[in-house]
């Protein structure tokens, strides 16, 4: 017969209340098998069997309060020896077994009444090295990388990774030899290209639609594809009489220019490197509308009379403003005229839209002081800006074109 007394469950409370029994008299229990639950002032704790045997007596029923150290369970053990388990033994027999271990950390006590204290048998073997301050830092020396380990700005590392460049061997131009983004760029082939930058983003914009969207797209296309080159000059309209139709005179002058230099009335395909000189001159005329820029086309300007051209210009202008321009009226333009001078501005750098190769801009007319043989005179003059795609039009062709335009414009009829 062996008696198991209620152990001190760790907090040092004097007593515990039996909550429920998990075993009955006559049960055969194994070591660690839960026998009962007791409640202390803090928590309900399971009490396991400290050894194997047959239960002979249970001291107390649920609700009874048992004093620490008082008999709790009597066992009939295999050995039959009568012994009393010391009341200080823990409820947890594994800890009890390790009580003899000559190790700090092992104990004869389960050690807590709250919850369940994990108990390990694992023996810790560690090499703990107290680090301390290094002499290097203490002396105020900047940290250096041992073993040639690289020091690089995170952005530089990210860029190098993106470009597939290894940083090894790069010399850093940053403070303390740190590799910075500029070092990676210098090292890479992208140095030759413009750095990729993104305009600042903002919130709350409205999406472009219709004409404005079309303009954005065609201008982007032009920017990415055309080598624009612009020449400026002034047409002296001193000999003009009242009543000249400026738009019609400009169209006639363009026809004269194209006759002198057909290279400017052409389409050019930069990818295919092909050029097509066009027999008919179909001039796109930029019309400013509240909705945006619209460019209806006046067909065959060389083959029509001034009256016919005026009628066609009027029709297209009103169609543009009414937004009744048909797709046919916008298609297959061979040369562009931008008459911005009707509003303001003398010179501009008009943009060639592919596949065309040239655009003529006419600025605001003004009376300028002109030096003539006999002295100074005030002449009416028209500023002209001719942009051409220098990939397929030579400067000479463009200048001769402009000269022909000027000659035609300066005629008095």
């Amino acid at each position, binding site marked *: 017969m062996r008696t198991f007394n209620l152990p001190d469950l*760790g907090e040092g409370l004097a007593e515990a209340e039996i909550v429920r029994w998990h075993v009955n008299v006559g049960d055969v229990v194994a070591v660690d098998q839960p026998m009962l639950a007791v409640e202390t002032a803090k928590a309900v704790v399971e009490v396991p069997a400290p050894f194997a045997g047959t239960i002979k007596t249970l001291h107390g029923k649920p609700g009874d309060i048992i004093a620490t150290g008082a008999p709790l369970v009597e066992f009939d053990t295999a050995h039959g020896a009568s012994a009393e388990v010391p009341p200080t033994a823990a409820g947890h027999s594994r800890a009890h077994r390790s009580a003899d271990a000559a190790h700090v950390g092992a104990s004869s006590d389960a050690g807590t009444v709250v*919850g369940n204290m994990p108990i390990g048998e694992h023996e810790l073997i560690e090499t703990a090295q*107290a680090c301390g301050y290094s002499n290097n830092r203490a002396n105020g020396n900047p940290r250096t990388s041992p073993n040639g380990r690289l020091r690089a700005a995170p952005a530089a590392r990210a860029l190098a990774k993106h470009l597939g460049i290894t940083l090894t061997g790069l010399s850093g131009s940053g403070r303390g030899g740190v590799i910075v983004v500029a070092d990676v760029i210098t090292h890479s082939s992208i140095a030759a290209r413009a750095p990729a930058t993104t305009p600042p983003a903002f919130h709350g914009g409205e999406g472009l639609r219709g004409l404005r969207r079309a303009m954005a797209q065609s201008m982007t296309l032009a920017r990415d594809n055309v080598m624009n080159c612009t020449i400026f000059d002034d047409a002296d309209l001193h000999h003009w009489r009242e009543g000249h139709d400026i738009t019609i005179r400009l169209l006639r002058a363009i026809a004269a220019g194209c006759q002198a230099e057909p290279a400017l009335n052409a389409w050019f395909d930069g990818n295919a490197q092909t050029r097509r000189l066009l027999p008919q001159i179909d001039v796109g005329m930029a019309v400013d509308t509240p909705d945006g820029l619209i460019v209806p086309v006046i067909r065959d300007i060389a083959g029509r009379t001034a009256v016919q051209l005026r009628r066609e210009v009027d029709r297209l202008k009103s169609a543009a403003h009414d937004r009744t321009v048909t797709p046919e009226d916008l298609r297959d333009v061979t040369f562009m005229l931008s008459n911005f001078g009707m509003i303001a501005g003398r010179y501009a750098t008009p943009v060639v839209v592919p596949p065309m190769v040239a655009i003529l801009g006419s600025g605001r007319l003004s009376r300028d002081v002109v030096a003539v043989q006999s002295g100074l005179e005030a002449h009416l003059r028209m500023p002209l800006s001719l942009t051409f795609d220098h990939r397929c039009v030579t400067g000479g062709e463009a200048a001769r074109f402009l000269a022909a335009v000027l000659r035609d414009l300066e005629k008095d009829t």
Partner: protein
Amino acid sequence: MIEAINRAHTWELAHDPTVVVLGEDIGVNGGVFRATAGLQEQFGKNRVQDTPLAEGMIAGMAIGMATQGLKPVAEIQFMGFIYPALDQIANHMARLRNRTRGRLTCPVVIRMPHGGGIHAPEHHSESLEAMLAHHAGLRVVCPSSPARAYGLLLAAIRDPDPIIFLEPARLYRLVKQEVADDGKALPLDVCYRLREGTDVTVVTWGAMITETMRAAETLQTQGVSCEVLDLATLSPIDHDTILESVTKTGRLVIVHEAPRNCGIGAEIAATVAEHGLYDLHAPIKRVTGYDTIMPLARLEYDYIPNAARIMDAVRETLVE
């Protein structure tokens, strides 16, 4: 570890007559975790004093004793019970040296169990080290092995300034270790390198050491070499050692059981970002508890970082 703590108390009580131990149930009953078992029997009621259940009073008493030449070692039963004592700790204990321009120091140690993992009720599993570390004038220490519990507690008792000594409750009886009971203290304010490595630095403390070492061992079999630093003194932080290790490895993972928000991991990460950014090959990762109340028994192991979470974080730093 609990016995190492007990032995450290015993050694210092025996060798320094000014050492006084106080706290709730620490005398007759030997403490809720048995850290002070047998001390009152051995050294008497004057030197090992049971106090009322009043943490503010315990801290106040300790300060009073310290100013009069004693070296009190006080126990707060659980870290979640420290709040009533904070007024004394923050407003007086931490300031005494400064307030008296060095005339008085405050050689107090306040010990308390730290962290969860023992299926305890509410308020018994807190990890509040960041709150204490935020106070100038306090040193916060947290051992992760019986040997360091012994050596650092001795150092803490002998130090002339106040020290909060956090004992990972989960480790109290989890590991056994040969510890020479020779009264030798270990240095405060330094990290302990538990494992040398070249690929990634893992900084942690307290009970998280166990999970981190397990993760490091598994990772080693996969060819990943982790350097494990036990922070040990949580305030002031041994930043130099961490920075030097990061210089070597280029990667940093910080593991703590406490919630992420404003945790000590954030302080370490910020310092490495300030002084070690150019050595980093990958963003710093933190493996922490969650920003919620520490859960009760059923969910506490979902809350506490484990080896799997630590290994995931280490692998993430290695992707870069």
